[in-house]
Every structure is written in C-alpha cells, then in structure tokens.
C-alpha cells in the first residue's frame, strides 16, 4: 500500500517537473525589435473605474498618432504595435498590469500610468526591467524628483508637474486677483498634492479646504457653506464632469460673483454640454499644461474629431503628444530598437511639437514648456496668458 502511494507520488512529481521545465523553455525575446519588426508600445492606462474616461481618452489620442504613423509605413520600417493594460488607477492592480506589459507582451516602451500613485509604485519595476516609461498626465512632483538624476533613469514625464503649475498659477494669476480663497479638491492623490502647494503661497489666505469623492454629483451643501464664508475666489481641483456640476450649482445658489480658478481639466470643450447655462462659466480661469486655444492645436482638434466624433480633450491630446514624442525618439535610432536605445533617444529628444510646445527633457527627465492660462469667455475657451515655466530650485 505504502509503496504504491509513494510511487504514485513520485510519478506525479516527475510529471510536474517535466511540465514546468517544458513550459519555461522559450520564454520569448526581451522586447527588442530588429530590422522590419514591429515595435511594441505598452499603454498602461486607467481604463476602467471612475477615472476611466481619462485613460480611454489618452489611449484614443495615442492610437490616433500610431495609426497615422503606421499608415505612412511606420518608423524607419518598424510598425508600431500598441498593447493596452488596465491599471484601474489602483497601485496593486498596476503592479500586475505593468508586469503583463513587460513580461508577457515584451513591450519596448510604455506610456502611462495617468495616476500618480500607480506610477510611483511602478517606477521600481521599470527600473529593474530596464524599460522606459513616459508619463503624459501624471501630476505628482515626486515622479520628477525620483527620475533621471534623481535615481531612476527610465522614467520620463512630458506634462508639467503639480508643483510648478500650482505655484506659477497661484503666484502669477490667482494672488493678483483675489485675497481670500476657498478650496474644493477631489479626494484623490491628484487633489491632495495641489492643496499642500496652495497653502504655501504668500498673500493668499485659504479660508477652507473641502474634499469631495470622485463621482459625487451634489455639492450644494458644501457650496452653501462656502457661500457663507464670502471668499473672493474658489479654487477647484478636479475634472470637468465634477467641475460642470459645481458651476451649475453655484449658478443655482446665486454664487456667480465668486471668481473660479481651476487647475485642469475643466476649461475643456467637453464642458459646455454639461452646463445648464452654457455661458455660466464665463470668467473661469484655468492653468493647464496644454493650450486648447492655441492656433497650433487646430489641426489636432480637426483630426481627432474626424476620427472619433467627439471633441478633443486634454487627456486625448496628451496621449497624442506622448505618442508623437516616442515616434520622434524612435526615428533617431540606428540599428535595433531596444528599450535601452529608446531611453537614450528620449534623453536626446529636442523638437517642436505643434500644440504643445518645445519638447526636451532636463536632467530629471522632465519636459518644461510654458504654462497656459485659459479663460472661458462665453462658450469658448481662450488662451489669455502664457507664463514661462522654469525648473524650480532644489529640483
């Protein structure tokens, strides 16, 4: 009896070992594309969940650029193959998503993740696996602090970061127009970072800070309280779905005298559909790292609308710009397109991207270009001020 059991067990063990070792053989290439082969690009997006429309927009923008390029024959004969992985804006899911891209799909470069906390969790992994990642929407300053000479040479960021934007906007625009400010920020990593910065601006008194849940739609009680504090201005941190609600309800409660400042992305063409009175947002000023009103952007607005039948928004534009940056970098690579080659090429990138501005990464792999201040006039978003952004001291 005993020996039968042990024999069966041993047979099982051997079978298992054979199966496992067999499965291990041929685990694939390391993400390099030699002559004629397609370059795999990972799109690490928050595709589902409350912020899903952001990831979907970035994806669409990037796809537009890739498909455009592929129609021209790719980059130096390499077609561009986009692979999507959903990180659900959750760091735990993001870890598996990025391993799916690197390990299973053997991508050579990644665009993502759009959620700062997810990106921060993924940065050690791209460093370990030596695959470059380009952030196009993430806002947290720590990403830049730790990138490039900050320790992680594989991380790059295309968009301006929080600290720069909020500081420049608050100092140069907000503080010149109002003395007291009420703050209403979204309860995510995005909202929290901006509040910390605003509190440090001299000459600006913060009367109250309120947080709201992503997806919340009724702000009347909060706004009633803010109204009773009589602030000069309201600083809103969030996107246009919630922003439109705040504007509608401010209008309903008779708060139209309060100046509204937003950090992005509220002054967006998609905003006006959501407003009860499309002109009620007049006077809103927003700091953004993309100039929707720029004459240079018109080509992109037309192209995007023609393909997707919806207006171009900031995330979709950033997705497009991110893809174009990668295309520019890859076009300079001689020889095989490997992750390392892409990283080196990104470090040397230096070109003008119509609609965004000049693209060139500094020692911290951060791109610097002017801050755009947009103002809503009637039902149009107009660019009113361009503030040059310089690398902050200590960074």
């Amino acid at each position: 009896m005993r020996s039968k059991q042990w024999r069966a067990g041993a047979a099982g063990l051997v079978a298992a070992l054979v199966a496992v070792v067999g499965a291990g053989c041929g685990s694939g290439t390391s993400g390099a594309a030699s002559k004629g082969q397609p370059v795999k690009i990972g799109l690490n997006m928050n595709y589902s969940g409350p912020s899903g429309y952001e990831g979907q927009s970035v994806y669409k923008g990037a796809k537009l650029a890739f498909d455009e390029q592929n129609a021209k024959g790719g980059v130096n004969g390499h077609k561009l193959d986009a692979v999507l992985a959903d990180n659900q804006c959750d760091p735990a899911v993001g870890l598996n998503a990025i391993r799916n891209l690197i390990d299973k799909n053997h991508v050579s470069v990644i665009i993502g993740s759009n959620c700062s906390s997810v990106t921060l969790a993924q940065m050690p992994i791209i460093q370990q696996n030596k695959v470059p990642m380009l952030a196009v929407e993430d806002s947290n300053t720590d990403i830049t602090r730790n990138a490039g000479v900050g320790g992680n040479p594989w991380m790059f960021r295309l968009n301006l970061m929080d600290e720069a934007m909020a500081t420049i906007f608050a100092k140069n625009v907000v503080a010149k127009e109002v003395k007291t400010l009420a703050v209403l920020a979204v309860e995510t990593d995005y909202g929290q970072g901006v509040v910390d910065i605003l509190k440090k601006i001299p000459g600006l008194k913060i009367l109250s800070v309120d947080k709201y849940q992503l997806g919340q739609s009724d702000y009347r009680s909060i706004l009633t309280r803010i109204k009773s504090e009589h602030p000069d201005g309201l600083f809103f941190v969030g996107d246009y779905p919630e922003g439109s609600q705040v504007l509608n309800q401010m209008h309903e409660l008779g708060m139209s005298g309060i100046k509204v400042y937003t950090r992005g992305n509220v002054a967006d063409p998609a905003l006006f559909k959501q407003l009860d009175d499309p002109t009620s947002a007049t006077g809103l000023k927003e700091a953004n790292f993309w100039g929707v009103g720029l004459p240079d952007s018109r080509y992109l607005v037309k192209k995007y609308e023609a393909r997707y039948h919806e207006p171009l928004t900031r995330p979709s534009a950033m997705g497009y710009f991110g893809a174009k940056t990668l295309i520019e970098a890859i076009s300079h690579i001689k020889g095989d397109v490997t992750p390392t080659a892409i990283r080196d090429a990104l470090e040397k990138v230096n070109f003008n991207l119509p609609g965004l501005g000049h693209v060139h990464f500094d020692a911290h792999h951060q791109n610097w270009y002017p801050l755009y201040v947009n103002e809503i006039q009637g039902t149009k978003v107009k660019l009113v001020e361009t503030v040059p952004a310089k690398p902050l001291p200590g960074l």
Partner: protein
Amino acid sequence: MSTALASPRAGRPTHVAVARRGAVMALVAVLIVWPLGAQSDYLAGVAITALVFMILALGLDLVVGRLGVLSFAHPAFFGIGAYTSALLAVHAHASFVVGFLAAIAVPTVVALIVAVPLFRLSLHAFAMGTLGFAQIAWVVSINWEQLTRGLLCLPGVPPVAVHIGPLDWTAVSLTDYYYVALGLATACFFIVRRLGRSRIGRTWTAIRDDDVLAAANGVPVLRYQMLALAVGAGMAGAAGAFFGAYSSLVCPTNLALPYSINLIIILFLGGRGTLIGPVIGAIIFTGLPEYLRVAQTWQLAIYGALIVLASMYLPEGIVTWATDRARALRMRRLARSAPR
C-alpha cells in the same frame, strides 16, 4: 452519532486514496518548482496576488463560513497590518520581522475590541456594523495625512528581510517573494485546518447552527466569536505586512470596499466553510480577471453575469458542488457494483 459512517472518507477504495495522495504531491511539487522553470515575472506577480487573496479568504472564512455571519471588515484589518509594519519600518527603522509581528498583533487587538459591541447585533446589523467599521478605517487612512500621507501613499517600504542570528536573507527577486507568500499561505492553511478539526471548530459550527442553544449548553459564545474574528484579523494583518513589503508602498486603496466585495465573492462562490473553497476561489478570481484581460472591455460585465449565474445554479459554491458531484458519482458506481 458514530463518526465512522458519517465521515465522507468511509468506504473509499484504496486506489482512490493513492491517486489522491499522488495528486496532492504533484500539486505541491508544481507549486514549489514552477517559478524556476517558467521565469515569468508576470505569472509570479499574479500568483502572489492569488496567494494574498487566499490568505485573506481563509481568514475571512473563519467568520463567514464557520461562524456563519457576514463581515466586511477584513480589508480594514489588512490595511491596519500593512500600515503598522510600513510605518514601523519607515519611521522607526524596525526590521521586517518586528514589523510583521506588530502587523499581526495590532489588527488582532482591534478585532478583539470591536468584536464585543458588534457580536451583540443581529445578522444584518452585524454586517452593516462591519461595513461601517471598514468605511471609517478607509476614511481615516485617507485623511490622517500626517500619519499615512493619505492618497499619496506611503512609499519606500523596505523588502522582506530576515536577520535573526545566523540567518541573513533579503528578498530580491519576484521568485523570492513568491516563496515567502507560499510559505505564509501554507501556514495559514494549516492553522485554519487545525482549528477546523479541533474542538474550537466544532464549537463554531454549533454556534453557527444555533447560537442560542449553544449558549444554553454553557458555551461562552462571545469568546468563540471573538476568537474567530481575531485569528482572521491576525492573518489579514500578516498578509498586509507582506503586501506592503512586496509592493514597496501602502495605499488607502488597499482598504477600499471593492476588496471586501471581491473577498465575499471568492468565499461564496469558492465554497465557504470548506478548506479548499477559499483556496480555489482565490485562484479563480485572481486568475479570471487576468485571463479576461483578453476581453478587456467586456471583462467586468462578463464577470458580473458569471457571478449571478453561479449564485443561481451553484449556491453552495464551486467546491461543494464539485464534491457533491464526486460523491454522487461514487455512490452510483458503488450501487452498480453492489451484489444483487
């Protein structure tokens, strides 16, 4: 009641026992050896996630399966454990072992404290009470920014490392983490198995079936309930300490409600009250979404539909359904081979 006849093991022929033993050994071998052969970080990551869910499911099952009450509080214990060990490591430079032990102790104490008022409530009220506790824990983890850095998360959690006496080892590769997770999951598995077969387990079953009768028979019901909640909380805390070291950061999202719901689904569809149920459930429900990445857009809708169908047609869970089927098959075979 004679246990011999009532036991499902009675009447099982030897060759089945042999095959069973062989299968178990093969499974154990595969579990230990496959990372070395497969060399895939992605698969290792998914396996680690499945193992963590397994530990959480096994712990939650003590309350939900054995005691028969519904609890949403488990991710809160997981989060408390994760933050405890992370904070100790980052601010007090404590070693992983110290943090790990603290991560077991703190949730256990919290569980013992909240158990007293909660277990006085009726079934539905208890469930809502645990939900309230979980929501409060979540909101605190987001808003107590001085402690937890809120939604910016707590980064820089050092890796799993053991420096005791002559042993000096730090986890480096994903395979290392997999073995640690496997070890933890195995330990939890055996703890739950041991408890289930002991007098404590039988008492839990008695309480689940009729707590009034149990109390009338002199059973200190509350103490046994507290024990179930506390052991589950300790295991969740241990899993939290591991997960923090593995991800190198701890976020409030770890305590969010969707995790409660995932765990409940794992238990109810895997098969609660059984030992294998949480294990299979965790594997399927971690593997399934990853597998469904292929059908990225419809993934979650399909998942929801499957859950509804399973609850309608497999009410006791997959494992119970499978064992019932196996038993029915065996009975039929026995009946056919019986002398006329």
